[in-house]
């Protein structure tokens, strides 16, 4: 039981930032823009949160993380939404740009000594009653506030996409842009807002990494989460609730290594466990048939 509770807790820990970034990307892809530069927004968010939280507290840190993510996404948007440049090429460049920028800024501000920064983190808030549920209570209901925000956001986005005209417009933009334009929807504005939202969510994911989990910053600490988030969107079939479930699945796969270590299985090298989430993603995507091809249509790049 202890083991399972620990497993679930570390599942949530892995899943939260991924879910956050993936929900944003889900909205962006629904509007017809795949942001391969998501990784860049995450690392920018992490550094933004780090710099500001140290000086002005965690609240401001979260805001700064979101803002940093939005700034990176705005560069992406200039190229893909305004200039209609290829999304994959631009996204690749944006990731490279953000990793370089954050590395340079970090080393310039904090030096190259490699001394681990210590940044204040937000603590977990236990929800009375719910958190006392055996096994699952602590894992799901003694979480940082940012996680609760995701609990609300996933169903909220699902509702927004299907039950508001703005959501309808966004989906139309992704699926049939000319139909959306003919219906009086402004294409660039719609896509721009979607991309910026995704950037903000990715920035928030970076802030969660720093302010709700690690309590420090490290270069390249996004560690491919932006790419994984994109895979999670595909896994979740472009549906916010599906995305949340896929993030949990991925988090669970990542948490397996912790579980097996806790169970004392030293026979299997841990490096191979690091590969499990990625393998699982491939297997699930492959087994869900045409997962890769039933995606919403992309604007021509």
């Amino acid at each position, binding site marked *: 039981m202890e083991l399972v509770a620990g497993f679930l807790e570390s599942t949530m820990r892995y899943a939260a930032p991924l879910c956050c970034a993936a929900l944003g990307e889900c909205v962006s892809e629904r509007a017809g823009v795949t942001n*391969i530069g998501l990784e860049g927004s995450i690392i920018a968010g992490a550094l933004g949160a780090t710099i500001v939280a140290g000086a002005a507290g965690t609240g401001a840190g979260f805001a700064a993380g979101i803002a940093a993510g939005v700034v990176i996404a705005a*560069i992406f948007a200039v*190229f893909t939404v305004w*200039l*209609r*440049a*290829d999304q*994959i*090429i*631009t996204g*690749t*460049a*944006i990731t*490279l*740009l953000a*990793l*370089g*920028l954050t*590395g*340079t*800024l970090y*080393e*310039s*501000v904090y030096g*190259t000594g490699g001394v681990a920064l210590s940044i204040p983190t937000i603590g977990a808030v236990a929800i009375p009653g719910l958190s006392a549920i055996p096994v699952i209570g602590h894992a799901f209901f003694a979480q940082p506030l940012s996680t609760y925000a995701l609990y609300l956001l996933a169903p909220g986005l699902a509702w927004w996409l299907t039950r508001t005209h703005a959501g309808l417009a966004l989906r139309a933009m992704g699926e049939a842009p000319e139909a959306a334009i003919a219906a009086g929807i402004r294409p660039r504005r719609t896509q721009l807002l979607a991309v910026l939202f995704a950037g903000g969510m990715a920035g928030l994911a970076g802030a969660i990494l720093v302010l709700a989990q690690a309590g420090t910053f490290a*270069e390249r600490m996004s560690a*491919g989460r932006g*790419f994984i988030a*994109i*895979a999670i969107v*595909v896994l979740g079939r472009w549906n916010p609730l599906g995305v949340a479930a896929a993030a949990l699945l991925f988090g669970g796969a990542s948490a397996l290594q912790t579980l097996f270590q806790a169970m004392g299985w030293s026979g299997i*090298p841990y*490096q*191979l466990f*690091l*590969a499990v989430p*990625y*393998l699982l*993603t*491939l297997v699930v*995507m*492959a*087994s869900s*048939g*045409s*997962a*890769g*091809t*039933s*995606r919403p249509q992309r604007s021509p790049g």
Partner: protein
Amino acid sequence: MMRSATNWLTSALLFLAAAVGVLSLLLLVTGHPPAPALAALVRGSVGSGYALSTTVVRAIPLALSGLAVALAFRAGLLNIGAEGQLLMGACAATAMGGVIATLMGGSTGSDLAGGSRVVALLLILIASALAGAAWAGIAAVLRRRFGVLEVISTIMLNFIALSITGWLVRGPLQEPARINPQSASLPQGLQLPVLLPGTRIHAGVLLAVGLALALWWWLRDRASGFRLRAVGGNPFAAASAGQIAVARTTLMAFLLSGALAGVAGGVELTGVTFALYENFSPGYGYTAIAVALLARLSPVGVLGTALLFGALEAGASAMQRDAMVPSVVVSVVEASLILLVVAADRWRSRGAAEAGV
């Protein structure tokens, strides 16, 4: 011909100037005086014979993996997985090197010369090519049979390859003493020969140039190369108007691209590092995407952009050493270059579209 070459040179210089501008701005913002930093950058990349040789050595894996990316993109495949394919190539080369060293009976290999050395090196490079192709082949099968987009699958495969490398250097391929997480060093007889004595420039440079020229010729002059380009240009028209077997062409492109990236890993192992370790590749496979894009997917152009990026990375080390500027700053320059080229392309095609309608 002359005119277009001049134009190309002019625009290349303009892009470079803009990138230097971006770099200077960033240096100023982060409180580094630009002049000494830029001086260090130039010194470290082209300032001396040693600097030049460092540039060339750095350019080799970038050129080979850049060719891999260019070939895939030409075929319309978004192979983001050169990094993983390169790693698997290096793993296979290490394993093959180990096997050959063992067969040689523990000799250090100094006695391995002439023909047998060539055969041994060929075997190692073939192993790396096959491993890279196999790794890319997984993405090909996932796309063909299961409809998994290669953008996603190749990124996942990169992470998996990294894990496998991490495991191999602590497990089956670890050095005999089992202290450090790395493989045993290749005996000298299994290392690529140095071309210019006194430098580290190895025979891999010939391979890179040769493969670039071969690829250029093949894409332009051979029917199979044309088919690959046609499929990349428009798979529907290739299938309908050209009656080209799109699936087979795509598979071939995947395998060739993977093989090239695998060879990049094999060459880096036998030419530079001589041993496999966890951070064997400082992201060559990702930089390769920038190299290929900046070369506009031209195989010969890849040689040029690989040299440029090699110079940037060689110069960055000097910049870090002499001017305390984080070397990661070159990523910003590389990214700016790609974005500038993308913007210029879009600008031009917009102008053309408006004039053409």
